[in-house]
């Protein structure tokens, strides 16, 4: 291979990663008037698909990855988006000005004028003895989901390691399939990074009510072999043993930064980009789970950069990066939101509750229909919503335009939150 290859100037954009962010980036480029070639290269054999159903419907319904495809084949053809599947890019060579050639594992090469990295994240591996036994599953892509669905159909005792969205959604699906389910995690509360304490406590109770055993602060220290190379259970820090014939590990994801590192881009828990989605070399753009970006909302005293793993963020960051490549730069500034479906519980979260100093609970958590609104310095900053979709939409709308909801009034569930949206007096002063 020629390590100094420089591409001709009519090769357009190469998007590495045929995922939610990658496909959005390609689609938005066309929407914003970009006319040069667009090539999207993905490592998986499936046409680009939605990821959220993998831990939900795809586990308990006879659905195929085709049914959750993001776009039709005709769409890509009609929009001049060349989709290359089953090719993993392992190396990129560049000359001056950002143009270069990307090489796939197979030896195929792809020339480009501008490079977009939407390479996502890989599951964090369980760092304990026995983690490579048969019967230990991870869930990140469609093939993982199909393998897990097949395994769940045979499973009796399921151990889920991790108490985040993947873990709890798998626990809910497994319980729905009639399995005995235990969730064991290192943290002392569920969904620790995603929601506030009242919502964590609610989900703990809700899972227990549905027959799931939950072991907080109890990360397995060893997985046990049944003597034939298959998992038969796990040992907890206190020496107790949980029996399991299927283990699902959901302890977070690690951004795929190898290509960025090889290109010499700044990496710090993700490919570091600015508010326009631009990496440190001033030419590569990046979006989605692989990216660490400035917070897209005011976050006084908060971190300088944040890495999100959500559909909404993948879409918004991809639009931002596409806008930059199409010479219509607009900074990424949007209220993040995400959701989770577990059993008949719909959780929706709007905004970032990081650093909140007050919260109010609207409704009774025991009724499985309630909301928690978070305030910081008198500003409404976020909300968690369980089976209260209208409240979620009201808060998302209020946050999007910098308005607030008076905390005292919010606790009256007879008044729709939509009617309580008011100007934020503190922001008016500012």
């Amino acid at each position, binding site marked *: 291979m020629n390590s100094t290859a420089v591409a001709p100037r009519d090769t357009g954009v190469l998007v590495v990663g045929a995922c939610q962010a990658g496909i959005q980036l390609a*689609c938005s480029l066309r929407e914003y008037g970009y006319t040069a070639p667009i090539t999207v290269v993905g490592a998986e054999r499936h046409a680009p698909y*939605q990821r*959220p*159903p993998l831990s*939900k419907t795809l586990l308990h319904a006879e659905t195929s990855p085709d*049914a*959750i*495809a*993001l*776009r*039709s084949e*005709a*769409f890509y053809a*009609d*929009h001049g988006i060349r989709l290359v599947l089953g090719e993993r890019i392992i190396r990129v060579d560049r000359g001056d000005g950002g143009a270069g050639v990307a090489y796939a594992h197979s030896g195929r090469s792809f020339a480009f004028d501008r490079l977009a990295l939407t390479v996502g994240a890989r599951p964090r591996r369980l760092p304990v003895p026995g983690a490579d036994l048969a019967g230990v599953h991870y869930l990140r892509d469609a093939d993982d989901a199909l393998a897990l669905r097949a395994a769940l159909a045979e499973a009796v005792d399921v151990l889920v390691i991790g108490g985040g969205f993947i873990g709890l959604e798998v626990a809910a699906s497994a319980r729905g399939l009639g399995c005995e389910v235990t969730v064991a995690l290192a943290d002392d509360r569920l969904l620790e990074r995603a929601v506030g304490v009242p919502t964590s406590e609610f989900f703990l109770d809700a899972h227990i009510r549905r027959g799931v055993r939950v072991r907080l602060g109890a990360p397995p220290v060893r997985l046990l072999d049944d003597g034939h190379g298959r998992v038969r259970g796990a040992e907890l820090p206190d020496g107790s043993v949980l029996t399991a014939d299927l283990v699902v590990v959901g302890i977070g994801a690690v951004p795929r930064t190898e290509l960025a590192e090889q290109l010499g881009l700044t990496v710090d828990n993700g490919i570091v980009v600015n508010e326009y989605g631009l990496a440190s070399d001033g030419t590569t753009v990046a979006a989605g789970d692989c990216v660490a970006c400035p917070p897209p909302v005011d976050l006084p005293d908060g971190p300088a950069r944040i890495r999100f793993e959500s*559909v*909404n963020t993948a*879409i918004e960051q991809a639009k931002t990066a596409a806008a930059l490549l199409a010479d219509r730069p607009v900074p990424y500034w949007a209220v993040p*939101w995400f*959701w989770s*479906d577990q059993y008949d519980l*719909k959780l*929706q979260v709007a905004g970032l509750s990081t650093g909140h100093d007050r919260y109010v609970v609207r409704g009774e958590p025991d009724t499985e229909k309630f909301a928690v609104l978070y305030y910081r310095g008198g500003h409404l900053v976020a909300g968690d919503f369980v*089976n*209260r*979709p*209208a409240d*979620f*939409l*009201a808060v998302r*709308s209020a946050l999007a335009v910098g308005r607030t909801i008076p905390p005292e009034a919010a606790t009256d569930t007879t008044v*729709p939150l*939509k009617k309580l949206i008011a100007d934020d007096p503190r922001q008016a002063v500012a």
Partner: protein
Amino acid sequence: MPKVTYVSDAGEVRVVDGLVGDSVMQTAVRNGVPGITGECGGVLSCATCHVFVDEADLDRLEPVSGLEDEMLDGTVVDRCPNSRLSCQIKLSEELGDLRVTTPEAQE
């Protein structure tokens, strides 16, 4: 094959061949019909696939569920009597062709 006619807020008409089992939202998103976002993929989480269903088609649809009803109260463009979330309208041979109008904004 059921056809879905999408009419934009500005009056532009686009007719798409749908697949039985797909929703009106999926059909729009997969074929790049503007005016429907469908960010959550069709699980009643985002309310960005709001449409106004043609009066002639309205009575043939399955009724609005409790969750959809609540979501419709929060759409960006206020709901009308013929408002639906298009992710909840599944195409079938029995239902036949449909005509919907997309609102001025979804987000």
